[in-house]
């Protein structure tokens, strides 16, 4: 075992000994937003950025009371064709933010219980392997992805 691996193992072992609450403080879910849904549409989307100031973690699943189910998805271009695929989990390394953004990783909300309207705010619960549950508020922007956000600009434009 290299010194580096040893260090990683030690950190992981120490990390595992910490209470979940301490790790949760390291995870922040920010700039969560969604799009309004047309009448009769029961699928929606949620975007956000995960910041992790703590140790490496993994997003396992998401849920929201506005939808019967929610899945982690990624849109990816393969040979010119846009494919949407399910993600079993998403690694959230220490330091680098993980963006869920248009035409990339996103949460697909399925079986919406009511249409999402511009200006609505709804809760989304993210469950991490180490940090446990982290809740965020998702704001529904205009259909063009603008407005209603605190900065007035979509999170996709960094």
């Amino acid at each position, binding site marked *: 075992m290299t010194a580096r691996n040893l260090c990683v193992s030690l950190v992981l072992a120490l990390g595992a000994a910490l209470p979940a609450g301490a790790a949760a403080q390291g995870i922040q879910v920010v700039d969560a937003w969604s799009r309004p849904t047309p009448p009769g549409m029961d*699928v929606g989307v949620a975007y956000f950025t995960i910041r992790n100031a703590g140790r490496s973690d993994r997003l396992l699943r998401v849920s929201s009371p506005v939808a019967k189910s929610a899945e982690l998805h990624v849109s990816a271009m393969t040979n010119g*064709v*846009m494919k*949407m695929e399910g993600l079993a989990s998403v690694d959230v390394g220490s330091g680098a933010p993980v963006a869920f953004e248009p035409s990339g990783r996103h949460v697909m909300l399925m079986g919406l219980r009511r249409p999402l309207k511009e200006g609505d705010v709804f809760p989304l619960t993210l469950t991490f392997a180490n940090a446990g549950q982290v809740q965020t508020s998702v704001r529904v922007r205009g259909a*063009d*992805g603008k407005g209603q956000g605190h900065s007035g600009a979509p999170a996709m434009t960094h």
Partner: protein
Amino acid sequence: MSRSKKVALVAAALAATACGLLLGMLSRHDEPPAIAGFVYPEPKVISPFALTAQDGGTFDLGALKGKWSFVYFGYTYCPDVCPTTLAELSRAQQLLEKAGEDSGNQYVFVSVDSRRDTPQRLAQYVSFFNRKFIAATGNDAALAGLTRDVGVAYSFPEGRTGSVYAVDHSSIVALFDPDARLHAVFTPPQKAEGIADGFRKILGRGPGPG
């Protein structure tokens, strides 16, 4: 559709797209405008087709004549890429309208998922993004010629059942000229500014200063 047939269809669509790209690059000395996508050196004639319009009527080659048409291919149950692209196309329409370059244009959403996307559903869907948007759809046979000519590939999951499935599809915005010929393709990720600037360049009006 058999697997081999589907593969052949995708391959043909990819070849068409690749040829378009290649022609676009080769024709640099003719200086077609550089846009966020590619411009056909010679506008491409499209075979006749007949789709069902959002009002239940027919949307065919004739419906593309006499105006510039921005045509996006997708499906309404698409949660991410289609709303993202339609939102940008809607902003492009607004930018062009402000610049007085929109009056002769139409904006069409073509659903490749006619099984779920009824005309009524499409009407509701597109007007939600922009009141100027219209929509059309058709079954695989009705879509075959148009998607082949434009270079759009799409496929459904094997053994799809029920109403929950994702559709893989080319996410392009095709631009047809008033003679219903394919003039240019805006490739993903499309931005409103890129579409509007590209259109102005194609019209020969330039993007303004710079």
